């Protein structure tokens, strides 16, 4: 028995009984989506990976960290690398919010929803994996109730927790714009009112992100017992504090570009205005250039002053394979200077292929930087009787890592299908085929 309202829109909307789209009433109006079976087929392997990740995480939480290949010496492994990596890549959320709401760069608005969803995925994944790494989930409140205010990790914990709440609040208005949820007047009005207050949340998110991005870097910079990571700095903050912030805000927009381009590729649709990538690329390139300059100066100071004063000659860090000097070259030049140039030079920036390649290089750069600081720092010997340590993650660690990846793909896929992530483009050929 059909239920109708006596209004005429329905007279022209006769596509609802499409057998392949039983969920059509949940899909944004006028949006063209693939059939439900095909969508479920796409989700199936990711769901399997997520299930495996949850199982592995359950093992770690139940049996303890003996399920991993970390030990008291090699306490940071794949999970911390993942945390640092996704938090850096997720910086596009706060930085885009800052540019749109605080600096009023309205031209970036079309990518704002994607930025929020990507940020939510990255931070929820990071908090989830941190929860497994720290363990004892029933005592999570200890870190808030008995904080060690002299620890950078306390600041990181507080800021990441608060920022995840902020991201949830920024995600809620997008969620409530779902075609069915907005039918409930209370949801719709709450979404409207919350959306009006999002600039406040964007400001808070900027403050929190600034500090936790910095503190994650500062965490390594204060390790006096690890001369490879130890840095001098300004007041209480080592130079890595500022380098982490710079690298995160430089690569955040690049990662957003890559995600959007990947979705455009999969769906075979243009989702954002053509010049938006170029704008994001330019912002990313300029900041990456500043980061490379700062990183180079920092490296020179470290090589010539900081490390020798700790009793280590710089060459000592690079005699252990695979961490030779090429890794330094790759990080600064190939994944830093080169993408900065490609993103800002007008001829390469005008070419989509170059632009996306440069964005990918920039993202690889920040991941390599986090990998080096996490893994190489711990692997290198610091005492005369120390040996170069080797670490290979266990399958539980890898499965948890994969679970976070699957979580991201599933959340983004569901968001794209059921939420109005991208506003319809005006005057552009927006539709090529179904997705």
């Amino acid at each position: 028995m059909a239920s109708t309202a006596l209004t005429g829109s329905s007279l022209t909307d006769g596509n609802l009984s499409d057998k392949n789209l039983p969920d059509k009433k949940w899909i944004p109006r006028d949006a063209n989506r693939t059939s439900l079976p095909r969508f479920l087929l796409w989700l199936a392997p990711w769901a399997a990976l997520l299930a495996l990740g949850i199982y592995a995480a359950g093992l770690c939480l139940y049996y303890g960290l003996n399920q991993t290949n970390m030990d008291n010496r090699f306490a940071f492994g794949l999970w911390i690398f993942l945390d640092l990596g996704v938090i850096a890549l997720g910086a596009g959320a706060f930085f885009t919010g800052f540019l749109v709401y605080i600096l009023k760069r309205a031209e970036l608005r079309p990518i704002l929803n994607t930025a929020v969803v990507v940020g939510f995925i990255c931070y929820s994944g990071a908090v989830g994996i941190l929860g497994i790494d720290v363990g004892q989930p029933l005592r999570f409140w200890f870190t808030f109730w008995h904080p060690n205010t002299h620890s950078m990790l306390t600041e990181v914990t507080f800021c990441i927790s608060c920022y995840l709440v902020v991201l949830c609040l920024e995600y809620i208005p997008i969620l409530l714009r779902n075609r069915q949820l907005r039918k409930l007047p209370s949801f719709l009005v709450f979404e409207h009112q919350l959306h009006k207050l999002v600039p406040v949340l964007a400001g808070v998110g900027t403050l929190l992100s600034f500090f936790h991005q910095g503190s994650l870097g500062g965490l390594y910079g204060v390790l006096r017992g690890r001369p490879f990571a130890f840095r001098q700095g300004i007041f209480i903050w080592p130079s890595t504090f500022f380098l982490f912030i710079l690298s995160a805000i430089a690569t955040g927009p690049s990662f957003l570009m890559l995600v959007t381009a990947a979705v455009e590729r999969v769906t075979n649709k243009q989702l954002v205005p053509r010049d938006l990538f170029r704008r994001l690329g330019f912002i990313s390139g300029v900041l990456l250039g500043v980061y490379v300059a700062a990183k180079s100066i920092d490296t020179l100071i470290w090589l010539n002053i900081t490390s020798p004063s700790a009793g280590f000659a710089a060459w000592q860090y690079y005699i252990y394979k695979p961490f030779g000097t090429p890794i330094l070259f790759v990080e600064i030049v190939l994944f830093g200077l080169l993408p900065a140039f490609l993103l800002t030079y007008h001829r390469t920036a005008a070419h989509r292929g170059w632009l996306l390649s440069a964005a990918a290089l920039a993202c690889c750069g920040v991941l390599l930087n986090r990998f080096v600081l996490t893994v190489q720092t711990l692997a290198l010997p610091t005492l005369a009787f120390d040996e170069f340590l080797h670490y290979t993650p266990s399958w539980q660690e890898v499965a948890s890592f994969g679970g976070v990846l699957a979580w991201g793909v599933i959340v983004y896929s569901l968001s794209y299908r059921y939420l109005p992530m991208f506003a319809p483009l005006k005057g552009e050929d927006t539709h090529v085929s179904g997705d």
Partner: protein
Amino acid sequence: MFPGIDGFHWTVAHILFLSLFFAVALTIAATVISAAWRTARDFRTHRATELCWNSDFADLPQSDRRCRHELAGRVISRTCDNAFDCRHCNQYSQFAVLPARAMMHDLGLHYPQDRLYHRGHTWVHAEEDGTVTIGLDELAHHLIGNPDSVNLPEPGSEIELNQTAWRMTKNGNHIQVRAPLEGTVVAIGGPKDGWYLKLRPRLDPETPRPCVTFFVVRKFTAGCPANSSACSYNSGRSMPRPAWPMEEPFSLT
């Protein structure tokens, strides 16, 4: 975290760090509480309906946002960007003086000019006692004929603008009729009476109010600006296009 708890020290670092943390936490909490309070206020002041309409209007396809002057045949093609609120239209006065050319009588439908028409296929007729009578327009009447059953609200109940005014069934199909304005039901009729509801509008006719969803019923708001649709629209000739977003097809079979 707090004084008296193991680990807390009265040091600058503790005070500064925890003050910052609580300031951030309070800001986040205040934002959520503020949004919830504003939501409740909007429902109290009946502004929620307007917000819902504006949101739904933004979701309408362009074909359903045709300007009333296009429907009346005054312009060839024009899309409304003001949620059908002609008070905010810069070009309203420019078009309103043009003669309407769309004659619904030509299509075999009768639209009396003594009443106003809503896009939800209802008409509103102002009575001398300050109440209004609401009925189905000619098109809806032709489509539905005599409904199998009618579920009308009880006298004394409140109905909201563009929310369900009453329900009907025809050949096993449920039909809900949107309210063309808000107010208190004072009497109920039926298909045989030629009208369905008699309503006392919630707002005093002298009170200006935002012209939200109304395509037509602005005549009752005497406080509306002179160039608003409320004060000038009375032709009843244009075919009222429905504006409410629909999720399911309208079918009587």
